[in-house]
């Protein structure tokens, strides 16, 4: 099976089939990443995901093989999310309300049979989402990449363009802050 990097190289050369394979591999994880980065706004996450792929494709000429593709793609997505936060008009819109009832249902396991369980799962997810959203941006980015996207420390360092030591420190601080929030909640 070709690696992401080999596929990206082929896309650089204008091969459409490899583009499809690359998108199939990363569409769902990237949507998940941006969904969490936007605090649980599915519609916004879908828009940003499409925009991230478009930007990646337009910048594919700048991709340098054999640099890892995944951090390169996530760097684009992270910058896109950051740009989004910076725009004043989006900061105070309805997106800030984060999870609506529909998206809470999205978060629940599709196999969940009981509405009450689904509601409870949605409530817990809302709590967690709210807490993650309260973290400083740089801690939230590192935390989402590590514990939701399962990127390695080196990959996160590449995506965020910081040393591995900084990634570790952001993760530790972020997790400690979350723990404090969870303790206060109890």
């Amino acid at each position, binding site marked *: 099976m070709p690696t992401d*990097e080999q596929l990206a*190289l082929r*896309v*650089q*050369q*204008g*091969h*459409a089939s490899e*583009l*499809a394979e690359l*998108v*199939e591999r990363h*569409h*769902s994880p990237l*949507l*998940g*990443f941006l*969904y*969490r980065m936007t605090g*649980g706004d*599915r519609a916004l996450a*879908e828009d940003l995901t*499409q925009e991230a*792929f*478009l930007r990646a*494709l337009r910048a*594919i000429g700048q991709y*340098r*093989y*054999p*640099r*890892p593709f995944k*951090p390169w793609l996530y760097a684009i997505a992270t910058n896109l999310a950051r740009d989004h936060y910076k725009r004043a008009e989006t900061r105070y819109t309805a997106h800030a309300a984060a999870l609506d009832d529909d*998206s809470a249902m999205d*978060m629940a*396991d599709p196999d969940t049979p009981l509405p009450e369980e689904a509601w409870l799962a949605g409530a*817990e*997810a809302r709590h*967690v*989402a709210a807490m*993650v959203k309260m973290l400083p941006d740089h801690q939230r980015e590192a935390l989402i990449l*590590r*514990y*939701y996207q399962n990127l*390695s*420390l*080196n*990959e996160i*360092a*590449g995506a965020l363009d910081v*040393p*591995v030591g900084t990634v*570790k420190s952001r*993760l*530790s601080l972020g*997790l*400690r802050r*979350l*723990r404090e929030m*969870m303790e206060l909640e109890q």
Partner: protein
Amino acid sequence: MTQSQTPKDEELRAKLIEDTGSPEEAERLAPVVRRLQSWSAPKPGPTATVKLIARLEAEIPNPQSPITNLLSSWPILLLRAQLRVVRGEIWAASALVMTLGLLVTLATYSAAEAWPLVLVAPLVAATGVAFIYGPDVDPALEIELATPVPPRLVLLARLALVFGFNLIIGLAASLILSLARAEVAFWPLVSTWLAPLSFLSALAFLLTVFTVNSTTSAMISLLGWAFQSLRQLGGLKAVAWFMPDLMAASARPWLWALALLLAALALWLGGREERWLLRRENF
């Protein structure tokens, strides 16, 4: 792993220890990460990926010519990437010393004596190869370790570049010498230095990977080859007692076999993760 711990718990614990550097802290933070998992993300709908691909296909770059494709194929790109990493002084120093060796050989040519070019070629290559691995060569080690290209392949690409360059300048110098002196045949001349060059380069490669010190490796190779040169030039009779004649035609099969073995051993050692981590500590 305790009985109550699932492999997933153990995996999470290992991850947290890597992140925090403390098993106690990992224990404290594990429930936080477990709770994070309750916030799941939606998956794209069944047609969403297909629509996205169709949208992106309109933006795909135009296909390139076969030559451009070849130039941007991954082995060539890997070599090009490593070309930027290998220290620039290696190329200039190798070319300069080889040119000097050629000029001295032409100026002092004698069919009966060992030719400086033959003695210089292996030394130049070995010194260059000694500097393809080490803290100075990899300032961006963290990014390199994150690449999917195995460290062995990276090392092999560097070896191919430096060895290939020295091979080309050695062949060019031999061609010039054979054209300048009608009595010198090209291929017999090349075969005189090629096997020692390969052996000494492989030895320098192994030493540099083993000691993680390019200067030490270059010095050891230089010293060993100085003894061999003394033997060839007949300057020190005692050297012949412990130093075999590496220029002899009978030594060539052994030198080739040893060169392959040493290079394979160096690649094996160089690709081991802990050696890269050891090097990181030297930064």
